[in-house]
């Protein structure tokens, strides 16, 4: 075991995967010599050479498109999109190509590829360094979408993603890179070294894709969250005293419907929290899953707490960010309803 930040654990995952399998290659903008703008690939080029870890042109359709071809060849590319906000030029290669190649070729070709990208706000990144596009991936059949919330999961999930035989979108909440963040932006930052989930094995291990985890057991309300919002939910539960069960989804597609359904059936209430915009956000899907699976268990209307349907505003970051106050208000409301 070692104490790791999420950056270190992500790097460790790629290092382990590259050691175990020569077919794993890493590339993207600034990821080679420099080691990435968030330093997640630091040292990989030095250790594995420039043929296995290299800089790419600033061209996301090229990064993803080339990775599709490499994966079809038999490599396992793990590419970095510098910010999730920049993925859109590569979106066609994800939505129309990578996701469908197994299906459309009748298993003749497959795309074992991982596309890593830092996601979410909280760092004053403005509109173009703060987006949470996970719902745009979850809408696509044939890819998996993973969003870790801590160093341990990040490593285990990333290794599992690299070893997975289908394409995986791996969204890294950048506000969590250096420590858990509960939305209290005026308080000192807690580093991962002071959190139990900063304990990460140095060797190979996996956390299975498609499995949620209950972060906090509770009896009164289920909070569905992922990424940064797991800590916001924890803070809100603590501050309101509501006995909330917090589920960290970890993978949003395939979704662990069984864990969600079991929890909501038990608590009878549900609050859904994400940082992405509200309309057609992944919360809408989660609400539908709860309604379809748990309607007769519900004692109150399900509530979503999300980013607003605006671009991420630079100066108003903390009014936009669904912090513990807004989540706490939702918890009180859902408790008052019945």
């Amino acid at each position, binding site marked *: 075991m070692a104490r790791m930040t999420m950056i270190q654990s992500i790097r460790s995952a790629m290092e382990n995967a590259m050691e175990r399998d020569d077919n794993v290659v890493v590339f993207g903008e600034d990821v080679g010599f420099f080691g990435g703008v968030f330093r997640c690939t630091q040292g990989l080029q030095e250790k594995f050479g420039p043929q296995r870890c290299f800089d790419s*042109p600033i061209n996301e359709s090229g990064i993803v498109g*080339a990775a599709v071809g490499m994966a079809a*060849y038999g490599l396992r590319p793990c590419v970095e999109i510098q910010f999730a906000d920049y993925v859109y030029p590569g979106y066609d290669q994800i939505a*129309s190509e990578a996701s469908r190649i197994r299906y*459309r070729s009748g298993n*003749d*070709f497959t795309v074992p590829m991982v596309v890593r990208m830092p996601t979410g706000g909280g760092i004053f990144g403005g509109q173009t360094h703060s987006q949470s596009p996970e719902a745009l991936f979850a809408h696509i059949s044939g890819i998996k979408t993973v969003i870790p919330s801590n160093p341990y999961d990040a490593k285990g999930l990333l290794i599992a993603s690299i070893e997975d035989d289908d394409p995986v979108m791996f969204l890294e909440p950048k506000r969590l890179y250096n420590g858990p963040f509960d939305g209290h932006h005026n308080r000192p930052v807690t580093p991962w070294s002071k959190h139990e989930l900063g304990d990460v094995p140095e060797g190979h291990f996996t956390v299975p894709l498609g499995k949620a985890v209950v972060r906090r057991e509770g009896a009164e309300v289920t909070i569905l969250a992922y990424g940064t919002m797991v800590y916001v939910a924890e803070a809100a539960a603590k501050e309101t005293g509501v006995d909330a069960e917090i589920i960290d989804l970890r993978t949003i597609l*395939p979704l662990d419907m069984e864990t969600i359904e079991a929890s909501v059936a038990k608590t009878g209430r549900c609050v859904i929290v994400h940082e992405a915009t509200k309309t057609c956000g992944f919360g809408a899907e989660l609400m539908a899953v709860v309604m379809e699976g748990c309607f007769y268990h519900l004692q109150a209307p399900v509530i979503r707490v999300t980013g607003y349907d605006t671009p991420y505003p630079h100066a108003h970051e903390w009014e936009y960010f669904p912090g513990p106050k807004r989540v706490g208000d939702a918890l009180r409301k859902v408790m008052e309803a019945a």
Partner: protein
Amino acid sequence: MSPDKPKSGDKALSLYVPEPEFRPGDTPDFSDVPIPKAGAASRPEIDVEAGDIRDLAYTIIRVLNRNGEAVGPWAGLLSDDQLKVGLEDMLRVRAFDARMLMAQRQGKTSFYMQALGEEAIACAFQKALRPGDMNFPTYRQQGLLLSTDYPVVDMMNQIYSNAADPLMGRQLPIMYTSKENGFFTVSGNLATQFIQGVGWAMASAIKGDTKIAASWIGDGSTAESDFHSALVFASTYRAPVVLNIVNNQWAISTFQGIARGKAATFASRGLGFGIPALRVDGNDYLAVYAVSKWAVDRARAGHGPTLIEHVTYRVGGHSTSDDPSAYRPKEESSAWPLGDPIERLKNHLIAKGVWSQAQHVQARERIEIEIAEAQKLAEKNGTLHDGPHSTPASMFDDVYKEMPLHLRRQRQEAGV
């Protein structure tokens, strides 16, 4: 300064929108299209720098002259037997196309795309590759598969989406796949495969293998940003890839001038990337083979990518959903100066004294019978219209390697 008031003497700007020279009702006349003499283009060494062969991006490399003779430095690479195989490959594509076009008209399938007039390009290119190499084709490179031993019946099964369709009825007709025969799954989206081929070639280089890739794109879709992506990646990493542009003059109803303006050539787009760019007579089997072999050898020797523009003409409609008489003169294809690829190769073999009109008719009839028999076999497995098809339950398979819970539930709901 007010932006609203032009200075005296300023001329109002107007937008230039390119137009093709001929529209329905016009008499097409290509006499002003410069067609370089066969044999005139030089043949450089394969390790040449792009800048040293700039002229090859603007000319048209041709081997067969008007008398059916193979002339110049690009001639003499194929034996008579190999040329006869090439001729039969092209006849097979044409016969296959004619049959499948008819099958679509008869309602046996939803859609078809023929390669009429362009047969030489895919057929000759395939012969420059080795087993293990990979094409990333568009939807009009059926000749790549039909020049290998891939079963014709399976291509038809795919077109019919029948019970024996290797793709289980999931793909639009003609979107074949065959890893074994070096044919990457056709997307149907344009240009996406152009960069994928570059990635595949990069993978071969990363692994220290000797395989090369060939990417394919049409004149119209060179306008897509993935064309640029492919050229950037191919030149940056010197990927062992041949980048093929099939310039058949028409992108559905849009003439090639819309994709490139009326300046330069498609091939010349490679020069800014330092990629050697060659423009070849796509209706000249010998020229296509020679240029393709040059580029394939260059890639395999580690000298990096080549951009080839195959100049041809799309004689048929874009697809069975298209009516070209609405946007171009009916006579345009016969006025097109590069002729018919099958006629030209046939005339060459006859001029050499190794083929005759009678042999040609005999070969064509034999191939037409082979295709007709394959069609009968395929139709025993069903057609799109009448079935049988794969089981409906199979539509949930292969979305992922292992079916996740939500799909298992949906399959259950579907009751299939």
